[in-house]
C-alpha cells in the first residue's frame, strides 16, 4: 500500500520559501489527445534518465467474484505479447535499449513504470502505446503466467501469517464492497480465470480515456509530444468503464476473527472503517496516523514496543483510496503475549485521543514529518512521476498535488480528536488474532 506520500504535501504551505525549483506546477505541460489520453510532461535534466509512468484507472475495486485478482493478472500479461510485439519482446527490447521497468496493481489503479536512457524514448512510447490495445493472451503464456501468480500468492499470503490474518480481517470488516478481497485475488479464482473473461476485462479498462501518461526527466517536451501523437493518436477511445456502485453498508457492531495455525509468533490486526481520500476527514485521520503509528516516538510504538514490550512492531494507518476503506493497526505481538491485553492497551490509547486529543507538539511533529517526507520523495524522477500519477487517479487531478497543502494546513488540532471519535468506535471495529497452534492467547 502506498499510503504516505500525499501526506507530505502539507509541507508546502509551511515552507513555501523552500519550494524546490525543480518541481513547480507551472513547469508541468498538460495535454489531452482526442481519444481522451491525458499527458503530463515535466522536464528535469538532472540525470540522463527518463521516467515514463502510465497509470490506468483500474484495480481490484473493479473486479467481481470469480474474477478476483484479474487486474493484477492483466498487469503481468501486459508484458506477454501483443499482435506486434511477441511474448517477452517488450522486456528484451527495453533492456537492450538500457531500460528497466516495474509495474504494480492496487485496489484503485494499475501502474506501469519505466526508467530508461533518453535515447530509448521512442521505443518505449511505441511499446507502451502498443500494449494498450494489442494484447494477445496466448493460451500457453496465459497458463504459465497463472502459475507465476499462484506462486506470488503463496509467497505473499499463504506462507506469511501476518498476510493470512490481514486478508481475513479485511474480508470480515468489508462485507459488500470489492475491497473485500485482496489485490492478489482468491486462489480458486486465480486457478480458474478464463481467457475470454480476462480479454473482456482488458478491453473494458485499457483505453486511452482511462489512463494518464506521465513523463519526467531528461527529454524534450515537443519531441515527446510528437512521439505520443504518432503512436497513441490512432488508438480509439473506449466507452466509459462501468462505475463501481456498491456502497459498503455501515457496520453495526464489533467483529472478530480468530485463526489458529502452526506458528512460533502470533499476529494481530485492528481495523476501523475510514473515509476515502477525497473526504475532508481524510486529512485529520492522516495526521492521527502519524501521531499513533509513525516513528519510535509515536504513541502506539512507544507503548506497545518500548514501554510494555507487548509487540515487536506496530504499523498501519490511513489508506488513500477512491472509496472508503480502513484505518489499520497491525501489530506483531511478542510470542506468549496475551492478545486480549494487547487489544485493551491499543483501545486505551485510542480512548485517550478521543478524550483529550493530541498535543500541540504532536500536531507540529506530524506536520514536520509530512513536510520532510514530501521533499525526500521528490528527489527523483520516479518520485515526481509517481506523485503526479497518484494525484491524477486518486484525487481527481495532478493539480491537487499542489493544493492539498491547504487541506493539511487547514486541519485544526481539535479536528483530529473529532475524527477519532467519529471513526475509531467500537461498532466500527474489526479485530483479528492469529493464535499459534498450541494455544498462546
Amino acid at each position: 500500500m502506498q499510503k504516505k506520500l500525499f501526506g507530505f504535501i502539507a509541507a508546502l504551505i509551511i515552507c513555501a520559501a523552500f519550494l524546490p525549483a525543480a518541481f513547480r506546477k507551472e513547469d508541468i505541460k498538460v495535454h489531452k489527445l482526442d481519444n481522451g489520453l491525458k499527458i503530463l510532461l515535466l522536464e528535469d535534466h538532472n540525470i540522463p534518465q527518463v521516467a515514463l509512468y502510465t497509470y490506468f484507472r483500474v484495480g481490484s475495486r473493479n473486479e467481481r467474484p470469480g474474477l478476483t485478482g484479474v487486474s493484477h493478472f492483466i498487469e503481468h500479461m501486459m508484458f506477454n505479447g501483443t499482435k506486434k510485439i511477441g511474448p517477452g519482446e517488450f522486456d528484451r527490447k527495453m533492456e537492450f535499449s538500457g531500460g528497466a521497468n516495474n509495474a504494480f496493481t492496487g485496489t484503485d489503479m494499475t501502474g506501469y513504470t519505466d526508467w530508461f536512457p533518453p535515447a530509448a524514448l521512442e521505443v518505449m512510447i511505441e511499446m507502451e502505446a502498443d500494449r494498450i490495445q494489442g494484447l494477445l493472451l496466448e493460451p500457453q503464456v496465459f497458463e504459465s503466467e497463472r502459475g507465476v501468480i499462484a506462486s506470488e500468492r503463496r509467497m505473499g499470503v499463504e506462507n506469511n501469517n501476518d498476510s493470512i490474518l490481514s486478508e481475513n480481517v479485511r474480508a470480515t470488516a468489508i462485507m459488500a464492497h470489492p475491497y473485500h478481497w485482496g489485490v492478489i485475488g482468491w486462489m480458486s479464482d486465480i486457478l480458474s480465470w478464463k481467457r475470454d473473461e480476462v480479454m473482456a476485462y482488458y478491453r473494458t479498462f485499457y483505453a486511452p480515456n482511462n489512463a494518464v501518461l506521465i513523463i519526467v526527466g531528461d527529454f524534450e517536451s515537443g519531441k515527446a509530444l510528437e512521439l505520443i501523437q504518432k503512436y497513441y493518436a490512432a488508438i480509439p477511445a473506449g466507452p466509459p468503464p462501468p462505475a463501481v456502485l456498491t456502497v459498503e453498508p455501515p457496520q453495526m457492531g464489533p467483529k472478530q476473527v480468530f485463526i489458529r495455525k502452526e506458528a512460533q509468533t502470533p499476529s494481530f490486526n485492528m481495523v476501523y472503517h475510514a473515509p476515502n481520500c477525497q473526504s475532508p476527514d481524510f486529512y485529520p485521520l492522516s495526521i492521527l496516523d502519524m501521531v499513533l503509528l509513525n516513528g519510535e516516538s509515536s504513541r502506539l510504538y512507544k507503548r506497545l514496543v518500548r514501554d510494555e514490550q507487548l509487540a515487536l512492531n506496530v504499523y498501519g494507518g490511513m489508506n488513500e483510496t477512491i472509496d472508503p476503506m480502513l484505518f489499520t493497526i497491525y501489530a506483531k505481538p511478542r510470542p506468549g503475549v496475551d492478545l486480549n491485553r494487547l487489544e485493551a492497551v491499543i483501545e486505551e490509547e485510542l480512548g485517550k485521543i478521543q478524550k483529550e486529543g493530541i498535543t500541540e507538539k504532536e500536531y507540529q511533529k506530524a506536520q514536520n514529518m509530512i513536510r520532510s517526507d514530501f521533499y525526500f520523495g521528490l528527489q527523483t524522477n520516479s518520485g515526481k512521476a509517481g506523485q503526479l500519477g497518484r494525484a491524477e487517479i486518486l484525487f481527481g487531478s495532478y493539480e491537487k498535488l499542489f493544493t492539498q497543502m491547504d487541506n493539511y494546513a487547514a486541519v485544526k488540532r481539535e479536528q483530529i480528536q473529532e475524527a477519532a471519535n467519529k471513526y475509531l468506535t467500537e461498532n466500527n471495529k474489526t479485530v483479528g488474532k492469529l493464535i499459534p497452534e498450541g494455544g498462546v492467547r
Partner: protein
Amino acid sequence: MKRFITTIILVALFLAGPFLAESAFKLPAPEKIVLKNGITVYYLKNADYPLISFQMLIRGAGYAFEPGTVEGIASLTAELMQKGTPKMDADAIAEAVDFMGASLDISAGAESATISAGSLSEHFPKLVEIAADCLINPLFKEEEFAKEQSKRVDNIKAIKDNPGAAVRPYFFKAYFGAHPLGHLASGTESTLKKMTVADVRDFYKKYYRPERAIAGVVGNIEKAKLIEILEQTLGKWSNPGPAAPLSTIPALPKPKGQKLILVDKPDASQAYWILGAPGYPIGDKITPQAAVMNTLFGGRFTSWLSTELRIKRGLTYGASSNFQTWSLGGLFMANSYTKNDKIGEMLDIVLDLLKKARKDGFAAEEVESSRNYLQGQFPQRLETNASKAGTYAMLAFYNLGFDYYDKYLAKVQAVSQSEAKDAATKLLPETDFVLVVVGKAADIKKQLEKYGTWTAKKITDPDF
C-alpha cells in the same frame, strides 16, 4: 504486487555499469574536509532541495570483527547507541528525531558500522548534534540492553515463521560455518542469550574510534557552515587511546563438493532455496565482466534464471542471482522458490543453466544488451543526496577513488562475449556449492534425494 522483486533491478551498486556514450553523467567529485580529530568527510553541495543527507562508516565496528561467542553484538551495540546518552534518554532521542521529521539510523554491516542521517536543511545542525551524542556518549543502560536482547530473540522466531526470510540466515550458516563473514547481524538465539551489557560496552570501546570514521555529506549547505557544525559535534569525539589493530579475517571458505541442507517447515506450501559459491573481492578486476555476466544469468527480468523458471514455465514469481563482495572475497548466490511438488524440476533447470553458462557462455547480442542495460540503469543509482553521500563514504572506505565508476564504466563498455563467458566459467559453480532448501520435508524430500545426501534440520530447533 510488484511485477518482480526489486532486488533484481537493484543489483549491488558495485555491479553497476557504464553510461551510454551520449550520457555525460558522472559522479561529481566531492570536496575533502578533515576535522581536527582526523575524521574525513567528503562533501558535495546540492541546492536543488532543502535537504541534507549524511552517511558515516566506522571501520571495524561490523559483525565480521565480533567474537563468535557473542555473534550479533555489533548490531546490538549499534542499536543501543541510539538508546540513551547522559543528555537524552532513548525516548528523548526518538522524540527529537521524529519531531524534525528526520531520520537517524546506526547499524552494523560486515566490515563497518554505518550511521545514516537525513533531514531538512534547517534541522541538520540539531540532527548531527544528536547523532554525535549517540556516537560519542552512549550509556548502554542495562534496562535498554535487556529490552533489545529479548526483542531480538523473539524477532528470530518471527523470521522463522516466514520461509522466504528464514532461508537466508540458514544459508549463511551453512556456507560460512564459524567464519566471521557468516555471522548473522541479528545474532542467534544462543548467542543473544549469552550476551551481557558488558559485552556491548567492550565492543563499543574497542571498535568505535574517530580515526576509523569516514563520512559523506550531500545537500543544501555551505562548506564553511558544515565544517563549523561538524567541528562542534563529531569534532569533539576524541581518540580513546591507542587502538588495538583489527583482527585479520581469515580467507573465505571454498566449498568442495556439495553441501546440502534441508530445513523442515511442515506448514510451507512453497520451497525456498539459495545456492551459493565463491565470488570475488570488492573492487576486483573481474567486477565489470562479472556484472555483464550476472545481469544475463540472474540479474534482471529477462535473465536466464527468470526466463526459464518464471517466464517460460510459470514455476515461480521470482528467480535471481547476485554477487556480494567484501574486502577479502565474495559470494555468488542464486535463489528462487516454487510449490512443493516442483522443487526437483526447478533445481534441475538451475543446475543445467549453470553448466550451460560455463560451457557455452552467452550470445553476442545478449552481451551487448547487458552492457546497454548496465549503462542505462546507472545514473539513477546516484540520483539522491543519500545515495551520493553513501557512495562517497564507501569509495573512500575501500580506497577505490572517486573516479572508480568512470574507469569501471569504460571497462564494462568494453566487455566482450568471450570475457563474459570466462567470467561464467570462473564464477558460476558446477560441482562445488552450498544449497539450502527451506520447505515441507515430507513433500519435497523424495525429489531432492538425487542430488546427494542432505543434512536435515527443523525450523523449530534453536539457531540456524
